[in-house]
């Protein structure tokens, strides 16, 4: 399935500055795997080696926050990669 992925600015160095890219996959894991193929290195900055979403990253499918990578993604969905940080 094809979806849209909105990329937060800290990751734009991987997407050549693109804030919105296409993605393919039926789950968040598959969409991130697809992104990794096209933008090498981007996945590990968001997802740790145990497949957990990193502490200052938030992933949404449309308006629903995904707690893990098994979250389903359907054709036309928008995946939002959001960076959450506090302090200086």
């Amino acid at each position, binding site marked *: 399935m094809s979806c849209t992925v909105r990329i937060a600015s800290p990751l734009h160095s991987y997407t050549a500055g693109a804030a919105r890219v296409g993605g393919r996959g039926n789950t968040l894991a598959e969409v991130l795997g697809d992104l990794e193929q096209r933008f090498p*290195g981007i996945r590990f900055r968001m997802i740790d080696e145990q497949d957990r979403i990193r502490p*200052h990253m938030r992933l949404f499918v449309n308006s629903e926050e995904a707690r893990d990578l098994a979250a389903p993604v359907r054709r036309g969905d928008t995946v939002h990669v959001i960076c959450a940080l506090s302090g200086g």
Partner: protein
Amino acid sequence: MSTVWLGTRKGLFALRADARRRTWKLAGPQFLGHIIHHVVQDPRAPRTVLMAAKTGHLGPTVFRSSDRGRTWREASQPPAFRKAAEGEPARAVERVFWLTPGHASEPGVWYAGSTPAGLFRSEDGGERWEPIAGFNDHPMRSKWVLNGTPDGELVHSILVDPRDARHLYVGISVGGVFESADRGADWTPLNEGVAADFLPDPNAPFGHDPHCIAQHRARPDRLYQQNHCGIYRLDRPGRRWQRIGSAMPKKIGDIGFPIVLHPTDPDTAWVLPMDGQTVWPRTSIGGKPAVYRTRDAGRSWQRLDRGLPGERAWFTVLRQAMCADAEARTGLYFGTTGGDVWASTNGGDSWRCLASHLPEIYSVTHAA
């Protein structure tokens, strides 16, 4: 040409000077906003520089340059723990904290230390990293490492014996000093004689807090250690550290983060004491920073503060943030948490400020 790499909480900077080291020029920032824990130029291949980095949001990684820092490329496989089996603790690298080039006979080999305590090796110049199972999965690891320190435990001071590529030392803060004779396949604690007054058993074989360990290149059997509980020296094959910090002035004490060795004289070392009393401010003692030098392997120490602020300077100098060069008149460099860089080109006899108002400085390393 002399380069001093500055890894800061907000990016990478460099100070460069001609051979006389009189005029320094600040370059950077590169990677503005990135947290740079360590920057190390490869003495075996000086065009290569590795940098341990992350950002507030993004996971930890390693960047590599093959043109002395002009351009950088990210490692294709950054340091990471192996995938945890069912029921095992699932560890993830929170930061790459330390980088060490491998032995001269093994070009392309690098080691990395992490938080939580992990050790990693690359055999291709830092492009792909593999976990060292003998350390990360050692049956004693959970006992050695004191989990739960607020900022996470740190693997640092990865030392490769210049005589033997298989012989390694590492420091774990908090955990102790450990030694391997087989490239990291197995490890043994090496903490005898080191105080650990914060532990229930002050004579425990591990659980100590080395802040920085250094091995003298010209006499690799000589190790120095700046510990949370004092300054020590160990001459191998001995196993008992001697507290050489006992010779420091009592009102100064022997607590600090870095310890730096002379490039050729194994009896000369420098430390930068900090306030380790009560709640551990870790600032310059009394707001009056000073470097202390020994020229007799720790039997006596000399205060060196000419040119440094005489008062109201409450900075901290972290463990990677002080280094020496290899010039005949030894150059010393340190960076502060307040963003200043101080240098001496006469072995610490006098100091001058090379740069101010930088972000908090995490790492200061020299490259010829």
